[in-house]
């Protein structure tokens, strides 16, 4: 067995070194392109998913979210819960939010959505919305009569450019009228417009906690949700477990649990596209390698007959072709790996711009290994089939070429 492999390797190396170099280099190039293709799309999809995850944590949920128990609308004694939560090990910061249904009007444009109140200083510690101000400024604790809105709410003068209903292209400094569901109507000056590129966040409007108390007419110690930032080096799961062990009665969810349903369908769709691309790439690899090895074995048919005639077992001959395709596969994958690394570096510097944000390539080591193994299996199949077909021919038939 070992002798057989040794002879097969001996023949394979010499056939590769001394046969047409152009053909071998072209085959290696094709494999590297197939490997790049297999990884590239999945890495763009991986980058998009990574972007969605980042946006969810940075702009939408933070690491952990506390919500009222089922069938209860508000978390009461919100301030004491926030104090309690911030003392829990693993928790860095916590910030409550309170929503009140409203309709926002500017000239003839009207949209209905809840206006959210937060403590601006606390909010800065749990999300990064303040870093995404497209124009104007973020709120401060003292702000009264001012509102910040997302880019999709501000919209465009040319409404055909809007994804959603908007205020028709309002700018910082413009005044809008907000009619709250409690009957209070106020004019607000737009203090700033943020653009996170996350559609869930960019269709939100925020006012300060003090302003909301003013709208309600009483001190507010209720919230709809409390966003929790965890400390670096901890996992959300661990911190959630600790929070529950500290007796938090409300519903506690990690961002993954909260957003899971939100992105499941998108991820599933991406996965289907990715799987189809992967299968197509593998079929291309098998067909290309099969054709190349078929041509090579047909060209070497006489030589295969001679090898059999002088006493070299057909299994050794088949193995030698399989080893050749394996070497070609390994070299192709290695070059493909280098191309991917270069692309990652390039797209890190110049991300792909999508409406939902800038996407860099995100490659999971597992996918890279899986693709390499699949491609190597494809190489083995593509090397084995034509070689075994020729090697099994009668010696004299093969020797006649």
């Amino acid at each position, binding site marked *: 067995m070992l002798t057989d492999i040794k*002879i097969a390797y001996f023949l394979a190396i010499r056939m590769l070194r001394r046969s047409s170099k152009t053909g071998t280099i072209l085959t290696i190039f094709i494999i590297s392109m197939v490997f790049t293709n297999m990884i590239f799309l999945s890495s763009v999809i991986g980058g998009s998913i990574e972007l969605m995850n980042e946006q969810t944590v940075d702009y939408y949920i933070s690491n952990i979210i506390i919500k009222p128990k089922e069938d209860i609308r508000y978390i009461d004694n919100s301030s004491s819960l926030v104090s309690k939560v911030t003392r829990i090990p693993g928790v860095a910061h916590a910030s409550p939010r309170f929503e009140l249904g409203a309709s926002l009007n500017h000239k003839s444009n009207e949209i209905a959505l809840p206006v959210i109140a937060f403590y601006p200083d606390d909010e800065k510690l749990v999300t990064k919305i303040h870093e995404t101000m497209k124009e104007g400024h973020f709120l401060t604790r003292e702000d009264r009569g001012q509102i910040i809105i997302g880019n999709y709410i501000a919209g465009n003068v040319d409404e055909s450019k809007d994804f959603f209903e908007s205020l028709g292209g309002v700018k910082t400094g413009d005044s809008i009228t907000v009619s709250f569901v409690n009957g209070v109507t106020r004019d607000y000056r737009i203090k700033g417009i943020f653009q996170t590129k996350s559609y869930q966040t960019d269709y939100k409007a925020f006012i300060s906690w003090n302003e909301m108390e003013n709208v309600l007419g009483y001190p507010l110690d209720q919230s709809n949700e409390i966003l929790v930032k965890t400390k670096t080096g901890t996992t959300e799961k661990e911190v959630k477990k600790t929070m529950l062990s500290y007796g938090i009665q409300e519903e506690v969810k990690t961002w993954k649990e909260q957003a899971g349903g939100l992105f499941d369908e998108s991820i599933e769709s991406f996965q289907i596209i990715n799987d189809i691309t992967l299968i197509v790439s593998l079929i291309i690899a098998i067909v290309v390698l099969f054709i190349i090895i078929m041509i090579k074995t047909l060209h070497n048919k006489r*030589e295969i007959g001679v090898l059999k005639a*002088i006493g070299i077992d057909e299994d050794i001959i088949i193995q030698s072709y399989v080893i050749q395709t394996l070497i070609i596969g390994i070299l192709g994958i290695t070059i493909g790996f280098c191309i991917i690394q270069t692309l990652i570096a390039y797209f890190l510097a110049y991300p792909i711009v999508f409406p939902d944000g800038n996407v860099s390539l995100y490659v999971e080591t597992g996918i890279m290994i899986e693709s390499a193994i699949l491609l190597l299996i494809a190489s083995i199949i593509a090397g084995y089939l034509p070689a075994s077909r020729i090697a099994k021919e009668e010696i004299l038939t093969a020797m006649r070429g």
Partner: protein
Amino acid sequence: MAVISVKDLCRVYKLGKVDVHALNGVTLEITEGEFVGIMGPSGSGKSTLLYQMSLLDRPTSGSVLIQGRDVGGLTDHQRTRFRLNHCGYVFQDYALVPELTTEENVFLLPMAQGKPDTESIEQSREILGKVGLSNRLSHLPRELSGGEQQRVAIARAMVNKPDIIFADEPCANLDSVNSKRILELFKELNEENGQTIVMISHEDEDIEYFDRVIRIFDGKNREG
């Protein structure tokens, strides 16, 4: 003692709907250490007979015994091992592996027998020295003349010290000087090592090198 024993050997090829009887009941014996020439006109069945005796083809009927063993019942794998260990081959068009150097073409056989590399190299160099190619070890077949390529093929056939060497018109593509050299080499190796050599030839002048000639006409043999 008969090293090859052929009895009632028939080989029928299908050519479309026509049956071509290439061998028609050949019976013969070749004894150990003989240098036998197989001669006959084109299409008489010489090569077909050689292929049956050398296990490169299977007869339609009849039997081939080598060293008293009926080789008809061997599996493909067993036949390959048998050829590797007991037979040497020299073909008309040299049949060297184009990607292997002179030394590698010869070295391949002891290596396939599982001999250690040092022993295989030593054996290959020794036999290549005997055929006068010590200075061509690292040349590829395409870098050698026809005569040199045929000497590599002979070295390859001899390297494992097989019991029988089968040569299918080894001088057909060579000029008269090289042909003479090759035949002398065969004769020398036959006398020196006592190996049985079965060679097909077209040329009457080759007869002087053979111990015996088997003539084939229309698929049947006739001693001559």
